């Protein structure tokens, strides 16, 4: 071999029930290299990682093609345990930590350092005493290797999310033989500062010779740390480049396979004004743990796209959930002069409002059921649509033809990648699931649509499509849209006005053209003291 490689994937291919998800994937990683793997949701990244880890899913569905070469030897990945023994560490997107245990205990779990004692001489290794002193030393070493200063004896439960992520990594690097670390979207749940810290830690680790495979959606992070970048699209490697040659726009373009245009939004015949208000919210209070709303007043203009922004935990998500009756709330919400009963989703839905929940898998979808049923159910229940004729509404039969027709139309319009309208929603990728959620809301043909975090956890291409679709609905049907999002950039891209929520109240409403400083100040609560920002 010309140069030393930790990992080589040669001609990897995999298909599930006749659908090819990976085709001839080649990838190699050198020691101490940070190799970024990017691609849209559904591009095959997770499947590739499952193969690398010998996950049972792969074996159960007929194995894979090609060869995995680790440390110069061809290996047959049969189980996650084998992968671990070889020296592959995995940092999961969801934390695999025991909350009630200390950092040290989590790091050393099942690899405890022990000393012999009389009881263990009789009953075996399981009864040896824990060598807590050495365990803590090791843990401290691992934690400080990451450039972190946390006490190794705190319980994990109370730590901020970011720290939990670090402890996951500390656990992996504490394994003495670890040669390759796979990080699956490690920054997805982190704040920006935490993410920066993590990236620093990654660089430090790389310098100590550990190779890393870094899966992420955030392209700026890729450019910040990766030595090499591999881009997957539809199961194939479409490009591979060193960082020096890469630019965010270029990566995004290759990932999506079409260039992202940033065109101005189409004009309306009549711009929405304060003279024509569709919904008025007065003193809305919502009891949603972590996102409490404490007295929001808001007027939504007919035909506008209103953005609701703000930092996490300040209650921006709570507004839509409260109005739609999903969380306990008080206050008054008036639509077209009619007061909407709160705490009653049926009432909210039948006032021609629809909601796309931020909790896609929890509230947005019936994961075990078909795409078409997911799309049609709400409209069927609220508006008696997609039902065969009958006298007594509760017993009218579903109309499979109408449902199928709508599902096919939506699959086409929204470019939902699936095997057909009867596919289980669970089997779809995140972006496609989000499109099903949108289709579910569209089926109600609402006058006002509340959309929460529509692009969370979905890839660039799907993001564009979702935003385009929202603009399209707004312009062609005149649908009023209230979009809640943590991503200020996308709010500024499509919204007419952006309300910033701070500590459960609307701090102010800004124009999307307002400066970064104005947004930043308002999100931090500065403008509440009044600094010449136009408030509604």
């Amino acid at each position: 071999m010309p140069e030393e490689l930790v990992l080589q994937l040669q001609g990897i291919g995999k298909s599930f029930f006749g659908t090819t998800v990976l085709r001839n994937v080649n990838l190699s990683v050198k020691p101490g290299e940070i190799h970024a793997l990017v691609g849209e949701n559904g591009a095959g990244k997770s499947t590739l990682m499952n193969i690398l880890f010998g996950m049972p899913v792969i074996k159960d569905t007929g194995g894979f093609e090609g060869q995995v070469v680790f440390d110069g030897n061809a290996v047959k990945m049969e189980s996650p345990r084998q992968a671990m023994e070889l020296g592959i560490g995995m940092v999961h997107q969801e934390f695999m930590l025991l909350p009630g245990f200390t950092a040290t205990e989590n790091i050393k779990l099942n690899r405890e350092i022990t000393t012999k004692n009389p009881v263990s001489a009789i009953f075996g290794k399981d009864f040896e005493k824990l060598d807590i002193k050495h365990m803590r030393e090791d843990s401290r070493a691992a934690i400080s290797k990451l450039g972190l200063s946390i006490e190794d004896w705190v319980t994990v439960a109370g730590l901020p999310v970011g720290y939990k992520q670090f402890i996951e990594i500390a656990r992996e690097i504490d394994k003495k033989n670890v040669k390759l670390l796979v990080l699956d979207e490690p920054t997805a749940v982190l704040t920006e500062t935490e993410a920066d810290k993590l990236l620093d830690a990654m660089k430090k680790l790389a310098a100590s010779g550990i190779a890393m495979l870094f899966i992420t959606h955030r392209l700026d992070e890729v450019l910040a740390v990766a030595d090499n970048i591999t881009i997957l699209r539809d199961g194939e490697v479409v490009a591979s480049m060193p960082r020096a040659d890469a630019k965010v726009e270029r990566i995004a373009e290759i990932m999506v396979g079409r260039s992202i245009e940033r065109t101005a939004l189409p004009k309306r015949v009549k711009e929405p004004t304060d003279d024509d208000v569709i919904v008025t919210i007065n003193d809305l209070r919502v009891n949603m743990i972590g996102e409490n709303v404490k007295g929001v007043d808001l007027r939504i203009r007919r035909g506008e796209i209103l953005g609701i922004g703000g930092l996490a935990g300040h209650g921006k998500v709570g507004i839509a959930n409260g109005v739609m009756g999903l969380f306990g709330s008080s206050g008054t919400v008036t639509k077209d002069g009619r007061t909407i009963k709160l705490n009653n989703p049926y009432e909210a839905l039948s006032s021609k409002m629809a909601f796309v929940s931020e909790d896609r898998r929890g509230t947005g979808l019936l994961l075990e059921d078909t795409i078409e049923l997911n799309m049609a159910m709400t409209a069927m229940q609220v508006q008696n649509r997609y039902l065969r004729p009958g006298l007594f509404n509760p017993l009218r039969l579903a109309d499979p033809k109408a449902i199928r027709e709508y599902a096919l139309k939506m699959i086409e319009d929204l470019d939902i990648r699936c095997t057909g309208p009867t596919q289980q929603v669970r089997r779809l990728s995140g972006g496609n699931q989000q499109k099903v959620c949108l289709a579910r809301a569209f089926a109600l043909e609402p006058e006002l649509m509340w959309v929460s975090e529509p692009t969370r956890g979905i890839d660039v291409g799907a993001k564009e499509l979702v935003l385009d679709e929202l603009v399209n609905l707004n312009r062609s049907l005149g649908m009023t849209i209230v979009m809640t999002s943590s991503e200020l950039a996308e709010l500024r891209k499509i919204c007419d006005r952006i309300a910033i929520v701070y500590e459960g109240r609307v701090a102010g409403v800004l124009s999307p053209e307002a400066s970064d400083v104005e947004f930043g100040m308002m999100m931090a609560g500065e403008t509440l003291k009044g600094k010449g920002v136009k408030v509604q």
Partner: protein
Amino acid sequence: MSKIENADPSLNRQRFDFATAFREFGIARIIILAFLLALFVLALVKGLDVPGLLTDSLTRIGMNGTLILAMLPAVVCGVGMNFGLPLGILCGLLGGILTINWGLVGWAGLIVSLLISIPIAVVVGLLYHAVLDRVRGEEMMVGTYLAYAAVFGMSIFWMLAPIRNPKLIYAVGGKGLRQTISMTETFGKVLNDFLQFKIGNVTVPTGLLLFWLLLCLLVYFFLRSKTGLAMLATGSNPSYATSSGINVGNMKRIGVVMSTVLGALGIIVFSQSYGFIQLYTAPQSAAFPAIAAILIGGATLRKASISNVIIGAVLFQTLLTIAPPVTQALMEGSEISEIARVMISNGMILYALTRATGGR
């Protein structure tokens, strides 16, 4: 040439459909089916009365079918298997006893007992739901014990019931309902004999099977109605249901009441086919075979369909019917038959419960 080209895709399509159907049927059911066929072959080889066994199988499928069907609404609405099935059964028994006490016989007896047990079961179902609503997530456990309590509570009732009909009460002492009440003189086998016909030596209990299939059909359509689908959404994901404007509590209530009513109807059908009404502790573990059957049919604790009910009823009841005599024939001279029946039926239940995910 063009003919071949045309033939190819259709052939592929057929093969694909077959593979899908095969997967959906599930490996567990294929194994059981194979085992069942093997038993039939053995029965033939051993010279057993195979037509007789088939007759018994058909009867058992019909008599247990409705009780198995009773599991479906409970699973669909999200309370899991209805371990409280004996509650419904007790309602049916009460209906049957009252009808016999009034001296109704034949079709009148059957219909009246079905009709009066429905309102009783509705009331009991509502109360049952009120309890289950307070123990969300523990419905199956609580249902089991609630049913045990009810069975013993009703045992006291059967002892003290103010019924003086000599057909129903103990001949000696003249107080308390009998353990086993014969229905031969009232409405035993009314459904079994309706439109009964023979194919060779196999007797088909047409009325019994029709009654069951009719109920299946009704439930099938119900589950495709607006309310049925709302129930399905409730069981599948309560948050989704709530956000679709569905009254989740109401849907569970409907599911539990339906399950209880079907349990009541089921035991009347069962009893008239069996020829006896069995009181006291007899209904105590009546839920288990029904649960085993629907699980073997491919249901899970969270998802079930009519096809699971029908496949489960056929596989489980046929197996229970033919396995004991075949075992008996294999081990000649011993009295293994009853032991085999208990072992096989409980073994199947155990197997089905370990396979609560649908045997996939």
